[in-house]
């Protein structure tokens, strides 16, 4: 069975749904171990290392984040936040079935809420995907918030 563009697009939709439904363990399994989840601080930031980002998280940090959300003494998540992604059909910018390498660009609206507060973020997610043992996996993911340089309150879940 060969992979199609629709498979790639479905994957992006499924990932967003996992995050909204809080199926974080499944979500962690989508990742390749050496992948980074990057959310730049600066508009069109190029360097994740020598300046600050909002997130630049490896496997260890992603696991910590997920584990913390489930913790008994995670005070900022008592009560828990909820989130909601509304996504536009992803562009498949790179599709190399032979090499098993794909790249998508997806516009999203992200809503997060807790108690009486709710906020909206507009963002573009760029996924680098790889086909490994017949499964699509996240090699790297970059989330550019439209207003990444604005002053935010807590953003607690994963845009």
């Amino acid at each position, binding site marked *: 069975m060969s992979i199609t563009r629709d498979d790639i697009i479905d994957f992006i939709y499924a990932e967003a749904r996992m995050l909204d439904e809080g199926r974080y363990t499944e979500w962690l399994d989508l990742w390749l171990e050496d992948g980074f989840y990057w959310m730049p*601080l600066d508009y069109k930031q190029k360097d994740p290392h020598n300046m*600050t980002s*909002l997130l630049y998280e490896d496997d260890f940090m992603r696991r*910590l*984040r997920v584990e913390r959300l489930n*913790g008994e003494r995670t005070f*900022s998540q008592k009560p828990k936040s909820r989130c909601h992604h509304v996504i536009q059909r992803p562009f498949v910018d790179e599709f190399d079935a032979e090499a098993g390498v794909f790249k998508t660009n997806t516009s999203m609206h992200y809503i997060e809420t807790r108690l009486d507060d709710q906020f909206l973020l507009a963002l573009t997610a760029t996924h680098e995907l790889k086909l490994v043992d017949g499964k699509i996996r996240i090699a790297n993911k970059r989330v550019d918030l439209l207003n990444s340089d604005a002053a935010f309150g*807590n953003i607690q879940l994963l845009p």
Partner: protein
Amino acid sequence: MGKYETPEAVNALVQPHQVHKDTYIDAEIFDLEMKHLFSNTWVFVGHDSQTSKKGDYITTQIGTQPVIMVRHKDDDIKVLYNRCPHKGTKIAIDRAGNTGKFFRCPYHAWSFKTDGCLLAIPLKKGYAQTKFKESEANKGMQAVGEVKNYRGFVFARLADEGISFEDYFGDSLSSLDNMVDRSPEGRLEVAGPPLRYMHQCNWKMLVDNQTDTCHPMVAHESSAGTAVKIFEEANWPEDKPKPMAMEIIAPFMSPYEFFEEMGIRTWPNGHGHTGVHHSIHSDYSTIPGYTEAMEETYGEERAAEILGENRHNTVYFPNIMIKGPIQQLRNFIPMGPDKTLVESYIYRLVGAPDILTQRTAMYNRLINAPTSMVGHDDLEMYERAQEGLHSQASDWINIERLHEDGEDFEVEAVENGTTERQMRNQMNAWAKFMTLAMGAKEAAE
């Protein structure tokens, strides 16, 4: 005149062991802080590497006053009120830029030299028959009272006269010195834009938290404690380097004894720091090539002395903290009694390996970002406290831990690292600078 605009009324809010909740929630107190405290103290403005070329500027605030910090000459940085003397228009609103040889107001094209002097007005003959020369507007963009560039860090006092920079900071400058000395060239450069994190709480809650050593193991158990747990469960191979994130985050779970023994030092005028003897930054791994570069510049002995100083948080009253060992500065910008913008800057040690900047950038995003697991729990506590203080159950906030009768804040002291002496020191300085000009005015009348 409001109910708090006398030295007696302000002083009554600060007792040796407790402070009145109005210092954190009252709108009149906030206005008085802006008028008195943030005028009469030396307040951080920016780092000179943010305005490295002539005409470079940044916009920021001193208290709630909008100001522009601009490179006027190669060796001269000015701090001007961001207000056109004509109609009040803000001259610049981008966070940083270059204005060339002069500022030009976008409303009526009045132009000003980068020291604020009025340069030109279009159709000036319209003022020929007037007394414009004697007007406020003719003076141009107003400069703040005094500016000091201390080893790259620019501070300003809004008031025309008052305490000197040296008298205000005294020996507390040793923390800034240590941060800068950690560069083999004795120079820092800002590394990118700051994190900007909005807090719905009073600015003093953030300042208090910097020397609150009894909260990390409680409030941050969910992040630091979980990190330690995950790391232990991972059976990390001995030969594989520990994740850098662990080095940063795990020390937050240190036991009370660790924080007791680290010590707190206070200096006059509200300054102080945690980590006199050791700190959560003490056990960072050495970076290849760095010690060598330091020894090259300073010699073995002096280099060891600089790198052996691992102060944790240094509070420069009123509203910044720095972390010398990781070259970080956090600016707690007051926006209202219950609103504070926190800007967290990092700096590059000029002449040191990049990996140090990378560790600092990681620290900043792990601990101080709006997306930070550690920051989330801190903000949660501040905002709960800000709301809780409105309760009529009590008017007082307790700051009594390890309090002793007759504490003298005019002398430097080193104490047990869990004391709340630094919070008392801050409030002592708070009352002093709040009432300084109130007192003077009364005496003159």
